[in-house]
């Protein structure tokens, strides 16, 4: 099992550009999450999904969109990138809705200039 994979590992965007952060898990987990971690801070939940076709907002959803057309994939879309979106983005998945069971991906570091 590859676990939770994220691509790309690192990306530089110009202000106003858009991009999609990819997240894939091969563990058949229903629950998937997107977090962002700003320098010196904890993680903040952006969006989450409890199953294919079902998504909901977390603490900081503004400027982002998600979709969940399959169990495996949970892409995060940034429209009109802004410097405030410079962060490290972590995707996580779990087989039950319990925090301690979340598997984290390696993260995507995004720099918006």
């Amino acid at each position, binding site marked *: 099992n590859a676990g939770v994979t994220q691509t790309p590992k690192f990306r530089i965007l110009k202000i106003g550009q858009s991009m999609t952060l990819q997240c894939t898990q091969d563990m058949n987990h229903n629950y998937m999450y997107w977090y962002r971690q700003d320098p010196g801070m*904890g993680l903040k939940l952006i969006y*989450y999904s409890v199953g294919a076709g079902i998504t909901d907002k977390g603490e900081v959803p503004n400027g982002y969109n998600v979709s969940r057309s399959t169990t495996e994939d949970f892409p995060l879309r940034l429209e009109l990138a802004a410097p405030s979106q410079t962060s490290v983005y972590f995707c996580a998945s779990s087989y039950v809705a319990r*925090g*301690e069971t979340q598997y984290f991906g390696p*993260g995507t570091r995004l720099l918006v200039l």
Partner: protein
Amino acid sequence: EDKVVQSPLSLVVHEGDTVTLNCSYEVTNFRSLLWYKQEKKAPTFLFMLTSSGIEKKSGRLSSILDKKELFSILNITATQTGDSAIYLCAVEAPGNTGKLIFGQGTTLQVKP
């Protein structure tokens, strides 16, 4: 608004010292409290606490929860340079979603 606050934000100690990290929370219908270690990559799960007064222990690390006073502590004894990391506290929000509310983290540096 639900929130989790950690203190101190950073700490520098020498090998062999004992450290205590603090986490206080204000979360309605709290489910569980979790501690993670983060070393320049994704967080690694350490402990989950749900009941007051029951210590969880793993080697030199231990943690306890006080649900009456709404806080938890993480103790690390005989610290080693390999303990240098960010320690994150998170509280699981109510509802069957697995949503986590994280604190800011405590950055621990252990000097030789």
